[in-house]
């Protein structure tokens, strides 16, 4: 019996003695709530499992949503709830805003959207943590456990860092400017990292005050929230636009960890399980992104990387020759090919060329050309960015491949690079290079490489791309959308 009591108490009754309420019907209600939460958690796990294939992913997401619905409905049966107005108001306002944002957002704006949602998740957890603190602060009868207070402090810290960090990430992705300077440029104060570490230590110190002397720590929890908010800004500001896939993944993981720590504060298994799942997901994505750039997380977080070089002709071709082609010639070459690999990059998203590219792929496939897309893990501004854009443009997902494409590169007639640079730079194979060891598409091994690009400017890594000067490379200079559209119309006229 005591075993069951602990389980019940752990799942539904924060900071109260389980024995007191253990009479008759109330006990069954709590048992029911606990099992319903378990069902929710199981549905989340099944939902994520079904994400392992595009065929089942949509159903998985709906299953997960049903799990959430169950969790919300069941919580309404909590014995501490005495009023419904505030709950109803929050649910309605939140649902309307959430649905509005989600329906209105364009696929090109998806990185910002994901960034913003991460932020709201963190803010929600931080708000719950603050309220939980006030709850124990005003409750003079029961002393909270120390681990509850520690969890509240962590939840406030992680939640606020996630919130303000995500807002900065949102601004960077949205292309906001501060006094004419793009926010997406890395920004570092003098001794920036030292300041960040001091801030973090200050957060820990204030957090200790919260847990040691909570009855006099109302100021401390507020200071903790403010410091954590500043810390979130400090952490994301130095990271350049090109490293956004890592930042978004990391913030995704934080939003989960914030929910997880809130679960510790509320003694709620459902929150702990769900938060951990999301935390794990974000950590995995972060690791994949770092490996795809062959950089350590510390190196990415240190920032200062990925300054956009906009000055035209920042590097010159020197006296080396570059071959270029126009759309008509490119169409001829593509038509004669049997195997064409298209390597898209962030440039494709910027030029909004995905529909034109999809049409090109479709035309070529109708003529019997084997067309495949090679998508680098860090192409774009968030994990999977290119896949979403191409899916929207009706490219079947069977054509979307990753670095595996390298195994067939030698049989490839044309590798068409659109708006990608560092991920096809053969310099990554040269020891001593700044990007040495970064996995790349070995497009130089294809019979012909076509690079659609505005100019010879280097990529985010700021190093010249030897690929452009190779004998089997031809440049298609110009805007990606215009160039691909002209190739498409050339092909149609044949």
């Amino acid at each position, binding site marked *: 019996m005591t075993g069951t009591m602990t389980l019940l108490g752990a799942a539904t009754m924060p900071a109260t003695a389980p024995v007191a309420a253990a009479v008759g019907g109330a006990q069954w209600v709590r048992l029911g709530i606990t099992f319903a939460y378990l069902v929710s958690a199981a549905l989340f796990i099944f939902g*994520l499992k079904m994400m392992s294939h*595009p065929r089942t992913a949509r159903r998985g997401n709906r299953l997960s949503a049903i799990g959430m619905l169950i969790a919300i409905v069941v*919580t309404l049966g909590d014995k501490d*709830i005495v009023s419904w107005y505030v709950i109803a108001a*929050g649910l309605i306002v939140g649902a309307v805003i959430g*649905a509005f944002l*989600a329906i209105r957002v364009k696929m090109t704006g998806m990185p910002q959207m994901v960034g913003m949602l991460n932020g709201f998740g963190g803010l929600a957890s931080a708000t719950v943590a603050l309220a939980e603190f006030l709850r124990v602060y005003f409750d003079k009868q029961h002393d909270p456990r120390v681990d509850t207070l520690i969890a509240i402090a962590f939840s406030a810290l992680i939640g606020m860092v996630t919130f303000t960090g995500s807002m900065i990430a949102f601004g960077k992705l949205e292309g906001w400017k501060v006094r004419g300077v793009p926010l997406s440029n890395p920004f570092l104060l003098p001794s920036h990292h030292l300041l960040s570490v001091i801030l973090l230590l200050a957060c820990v110190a204030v957090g200790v005050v919260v847990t040691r002397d909570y009855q006099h720590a109302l100021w401390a929890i507020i200071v903790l929230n403010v410091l954590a908010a500043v810390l979130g800004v400090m952490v994301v500001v130095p990271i350049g636009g090109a490293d956004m896939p890592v930042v978004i993944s990391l913030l995704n993981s934080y939003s989960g960890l914030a929910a997880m720590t809130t679960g510790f504060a509320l003694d709620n298994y459902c929150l*702990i399980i769900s*938060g951990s799942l999301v935390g794990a997901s974000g950590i995995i994505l972060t690791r994949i992104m770092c490996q795809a750039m062959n950089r350590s997380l510390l190196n990415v977080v240190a920032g200062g990387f990925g300054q956009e070089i906009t000055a035209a002709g920042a590097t010159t071709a020197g006296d080396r020759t570059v071959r270029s082609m126009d759309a008509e010639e490119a169409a001829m070459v593509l038509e004669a090919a049997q195997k064409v690999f298209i390597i898209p990059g962030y440039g494709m998203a910027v030029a909004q060329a995905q529909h034109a590219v999809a049409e090109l792929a479709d035309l070529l496939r109708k003529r019997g050309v084997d067309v495949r897309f090679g998508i680098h893990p860090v192409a774009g501004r968030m994990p999977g960015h290119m896949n979403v854009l191409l899916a929207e443009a009706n490219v079947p997902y069977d054509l979307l491949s990753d670095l595996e494409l390298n195994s067939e590169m030698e049989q490839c007639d044309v590798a068409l690079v659109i708006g990608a640079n560092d991920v096809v730079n053969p310099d990554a194979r040269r020891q001593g290079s700044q990007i040495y060891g970064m996995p790349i598409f070995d497009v130089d091994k294809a019979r012909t490489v076509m690079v659609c690009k505005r100019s010879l400017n280097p990529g985010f890594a700021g190093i010249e791309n030897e690929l452009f000067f190779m004998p089997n490379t031809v440049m298609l200079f110009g805007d990606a959308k215009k160039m691909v559209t002209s190739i498409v119309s050339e092909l149609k006229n044949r």
Partner: protein
Amino acid sequence: MSEVFTNNFVVFVLAMFIGFEVISKVPAILHTPLMSGSNAISGITIVGAVVIAGLHRGVWSDVLGFLAVTFAMINVVGGYTVTDRMLAMFKSK
């Protein structure tokens, strides 16, 4: 350390293992929907928010409860809707 904390911690560690196991099987093409979908799951914090909003112990609980439910609900509804929109676009040959 209390027994409740120990139980919480055990659940946390096991859930992390399940998370790593399940999510490492998600293919790269679905990484964006994975992020937005898992993000919606992190809106589970709404469970805590709803209880706060229903306490009615004073202005603090009403205001914070309302804000917490609203933020979490944006996360939940926005996350699931946007994920569904994306996944609807992924089609086979």
